[in-house]
């Protein structure tokens, strides 16, 4: 592990993943999100993937085109942007709150059904990272009152558009898949479309608001 200091003063812990990856860690989520954005914007030759997660950003290279030393040097020269979310792109997701686990969430949080819906809609969410399945976004909010455990047993089939909670995250299932999150509602919005560019409606940094479906 080595430490890298950026021009703005932020310090990052950098770990190598073989000869194709640098795993960059910071305790400051804002720094990570800015870093991921700056890495994509810098378009450093030979970088094939920039993968944000909760505490890390993974940079993957094509070792035929560059090497990790070159990328680490480029990292030192990055200037991080101020804003953490892509506020210009706020996505509104209309929800019908009739999920099978809504009553459980209402009881578990002690908020009641109306309280859960209110918190879900009032929270300013943004996409921390994607994973689990194509287009599946982990939405991070400032409202920890909606913290719920995953289901004891995961469902074999969760329909596309299911609006769900797990831990302190919210999400919407982009495609039908198995899943263990608590389902609180559904949306008709298309979240994943391979013919669209980009194919995912929710991408790291996208701001999200849930609204009542009319």
């Amino acid at each position: 592990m080595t430490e890298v200091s950026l021009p703005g003063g932020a310090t990052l812990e950098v770990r190598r993943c073989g000869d194709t990856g640098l795993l960059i860690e910071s305790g400051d989520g804002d720094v990570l999100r800015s870093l991921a954005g700056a890495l994509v914007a810098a378009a450093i030759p030979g970088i094939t993937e920039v993968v944000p997660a909760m505490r890390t950003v993974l940079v993957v290279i094509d070792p035929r085109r560059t090497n990790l030393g070159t990328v680490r040097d480029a990292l030192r020269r990055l200037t991080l942007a101020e804003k953490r979310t892509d506020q210009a792109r706020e996505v509104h997701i209309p929800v019908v709150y009739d999920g099978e686990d809504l009553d459980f969430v209402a009881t578990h949080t002690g908020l009641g059904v109306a309280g859960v819906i209110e918190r879900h809609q009032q929270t300013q969410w943004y996409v921390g990272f994607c994973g689990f399945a194509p287009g599946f976004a982990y939405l991070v909010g400032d409202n920890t009152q909606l913290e719920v455990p995953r289901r004891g047993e995961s469902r074999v089939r969760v329909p596309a558009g299911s609006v769900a909670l797990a831990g302190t995250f919210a999400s919407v299932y982009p495609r039908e898949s198995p899943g263990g999150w608590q389902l609180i509602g559904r949306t008709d919005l298309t979240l994943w479309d391979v013919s669209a560019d980009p194919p995912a409606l929710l991408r790291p940094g996208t701001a999200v608001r849930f609204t009542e479906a009319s």
Partner: protein
Amino acid sequence: MGRQTRSVTITARGPQVLVQDSGRPGYAHLGVAAAGAADAPSYSLANRLVGNAPGTACLEVTLGGLELTVDHTTWVAVTGAPTPVTVGGRAFWVNQPVPLRAGQTLRLGTPSAGLRSYVAIRGGFRVDQVLESCSADTMSGLGPPPLEVGDVLEVDRPAGPVPSVDSVPRPGHGSGPVMLDAVVGPRADWFVDGALKALFESPFEVTSDANRVGVRLSGPPLPRRDRRELSSEGVVCGSLQAPPGGRVTLFLADHPVTGGYPVIAVLRWSSIPAAAQLRPGQAVCFRRVRE
């Protein structure tokens, strides 16, 4: 009517036949694996042998057993695992261009070692792309489904000349332990001091739980220092992930973009093709190399 179509019919198959190309890198931040041919150099060689451009779609065949019939006179090539190749009772080597006349059938036997073969046809298989790739990603279901007997694949017109090459010698797949080069991983410090020693000095065995997502290995335990939980983080192809008390998983082409278990070591990029040819029951050793 327009010009003649050129096609291939699958007449028999073994455990799995998938369409693969060089994959769809660049979408990991949206939860999409790069996928693509698991043994990339073998895939590239197959295309080169029949004069196809890099990135042309091929078939990735697990444990042989494929038979396909062509409706036009052409060239094919089989690379990867050393597999008996026959056309009309005549035997061919792997890693050489094989001529096929219209109506003839190419047959792949069972490889004597290794796991995956690549079949390229002159012009390349024409398959709809998803996110700029024809690769069948078995993790997310993107790309074409596995091929079945009776499936007909269209073939594109060749663009370049057939290269003048007889056969390309490639390192063999021995039957002894496979030696893979690995570098100490990003979360090696999550394991007790003896864990790296156990990883690099003990043989592991490939279990039957081996596919394009990853290969589960049985071997000595790799105990953690404590019971902390890792928050999910991005992983690269070739990562050796070790769940608590569980079996080490070596990630291959269709690996999840993030993992929740610490990565103790990572294969060198140059060892990934050999890892993609690991066969259940085979012994594997990790050789510690510097970054």
